[in-house]
């Protein structure tokens, strides 16, 4: 779960990381009040996308008089597909230089990783490797002030800033552990009056650990259909094609999308119906696919723990209740395949046992492909 900047800043402040004065603003009038309290501010759209500045999501208001007008330009705007409902008004900084720092997990080394660069203010993936200082954390030991201080000297920071940087990295690592973060990032970490200030912040929390963080506000990302399917408890991603897809298992579902694309079709979604799905969730998932109004539906099942006859029953249940008004192609292989195929054929639905033939067929029925 990604947190909005203002939430991330709140957590940084609680941990003792210096942030500029600021507060949330949701009306143009409130923006004027914020300027009266804080002075000249940056009004920043609170959306979960990077590159807000370039996209027009960050603007400055010098006076209370101009603040409502500036706020109006951002509030309600569409920023890379997200509607802006809320701004963060933050005291304008006289930035001398911009640094980058983050704590994340190194998947290969299977331990935390601190990254820093003297080239802050741009996305870290755009920074040349030789300008990035990386240091792994031994999780048994954690991070003490010397750790960040050493990194600071590698970045050529002054002794004063290095001391602050050492404290800062210790605090960021603490936040990383305390909040089960996937990423704690300050970019830019601004130098103002020869002190460090967190000018922008990202904090992404591990979804699997949210049970430990019930006090955090729920930040929802994704489309309405994605929300609906996640409530059923299945993994779903909406795509921009028109062949709806259901498969069992994440890898199979990915391979199914690839196969549709291989034959020239355009997948409408990713849907993992689960490695051992039973009738009810499978039927619910299929009903969601029907509701997406695709050109065709492809169900690709390898029956392992999942039984092909259960999948067939789910399909028939949806056909006889909600109805399936578009072409449906089913591929069933494995456990109870014969029973499943017999059930479907009885209902006039043809099933394939081979993935390539089934995929070709559904692409043809959707009027796509070569």
């Amino acid at each position: 779960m990604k947190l909005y900047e203002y939430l991330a800043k709140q957590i940084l402040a609680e941990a003792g990381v210096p942030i500029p004065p600021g507060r949330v603003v949701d009306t143009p009038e409130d923006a004027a009040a914020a300027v009266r309290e804080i002075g000249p501010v940056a009004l920043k759209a609170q959306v979960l996308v990077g590159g807000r500045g370039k996209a027009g999501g960050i603007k400055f208001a010098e006076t209370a008089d101009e603040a409502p007008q500036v706020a109006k330009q951002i509030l309600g705007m569409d920023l890379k597909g997200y509607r802006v409902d809320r701004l963060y008004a933050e005291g304008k900084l006289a930035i001398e230089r911009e640094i980058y720092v983050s704590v994340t997990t190194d998947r290969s080394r299977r331990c935390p990783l601190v990254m820093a660069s003297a080239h802050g203010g741009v996305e870290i993936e755009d920074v040349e490797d030789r300008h990035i200082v990386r240091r792994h954390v031994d999780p048994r030991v954690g991070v003490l002030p010397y750790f960040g201080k050493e990194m600071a000297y590698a970045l050529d920071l002054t002794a004063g800033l290095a001391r602050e940087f050492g404290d800062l990295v210790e605090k960021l690592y603490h936040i990383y552990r305390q909040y089960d973060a996937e990423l704690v990032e300050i970019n830019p970490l601004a130098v103002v009056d020869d002190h460090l200030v967190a000018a922008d912040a990202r904090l992404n929390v591990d979804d699997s650990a949210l049970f430990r963080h019930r006090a955090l506000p729920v930040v929802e990302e994704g489309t309405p259909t994605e929300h609906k399917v996640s409530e059923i408890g299945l993994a779903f991603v909406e795509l921009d094609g028109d062949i709806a897809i259901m498969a069992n298992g994440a890898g199979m579902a990915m391979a199914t999308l690839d196969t549709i694309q291989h034959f020239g079709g355009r997948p409408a979604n990713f849907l993992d119906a689960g490695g051992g799905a039973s009738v009810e969730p499978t039927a619910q998932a299929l009903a969601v696919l029907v509701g997406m109004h695709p050109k065709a539906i492809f169900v690709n099942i390898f029956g392992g723990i999942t039984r092909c006859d259960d999948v067939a029953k789910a399909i028939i249940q949806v056909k006889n209740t909600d109805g399936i008004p578009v072409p449906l192609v089913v591929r069933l292989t494995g456990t109870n395949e014969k029973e499943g195929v017999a059930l479907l054929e009885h209902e006039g639905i043809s099933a394939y046992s081979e993935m390539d033939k089934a995929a070709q067929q559904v692409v043809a029925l959707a009027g796509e492909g070569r």
Partner: protein
Amino acid sequence: MAIYLHRGQKILVQGITGRQGTFHAQQMRAFGANVVGGTSPGKGGTLVDGVPVFDTVREAVGETGATASIVFVPGPYTKDAAFEALENGIRLLVLIPEHVPVADSIDIVTRAQDLGADVVGPNTFGVISPGEGTKMGIMPNHIYRPGAVGVVARSGTLSYEIAYQLTNAGLGQSTVVGMGGDPVVGGTFVSVLQRFREDAATRAVVLVGEIGGSAEEEAADYLSTLGKPVVAYLAGRAAPAGKRMGHAGAIIERGRGTLESKERALSQAGARVVTVPWDVAPAVAEVLR
């Protein structure tokens, strides 16, 4: 021979009285696995299909001498179960659960390294060695046959699809290993390939990868040392960046973990990279010829 597993190996099932634990303990035994006991706090002294249940791992290990354990508990409780196993002498730990916090996985893997224990998973389908007649996992029994092909995969069902096609093509498997779909897991492609290198029963390896992370790129660097032919199939070509594709670890983040980068690395290292799953078995037949 095989990797991780051997015939008659004594296996514990942590969480044996749960629905999943009971079902898969029974399936494992049906495949020939020597399940010597299970744990379930408060249910010590009972039997599940004739398998003795203990309250603690300490007791179970003391009574049975097991050194391998497979865990079926919900994600939030996995760290506790894993540490209980590791601290009581378990040296092969298969973690089936999904939704284990990454921080917990880091702690488990770090402790296992210190103790010299092997961890498979979390979020894995487990390990199966048809030739040894044993398995620790949730994979369907009927699709495997003994043979010379080692398989290492990140995804369960996709590996079943591929194992089944190998079997149908007359290509049996030495060991099939599920690394797990999470960002942090106990094994790496490289650590599994190192074992396949030492395993006389394995003559070729199928690597089933997917988008996210850099485990496939690291595997590519190892191929020249492996000295056995590799066929690779990777899933996620159609996946958009920034979206988690079912597995917590299957995500293209900040331009890293793309399929193209992985396929290029493997292909340049001499692996036979196929782009559709039904090409795997024919490619394996070819590299074994």
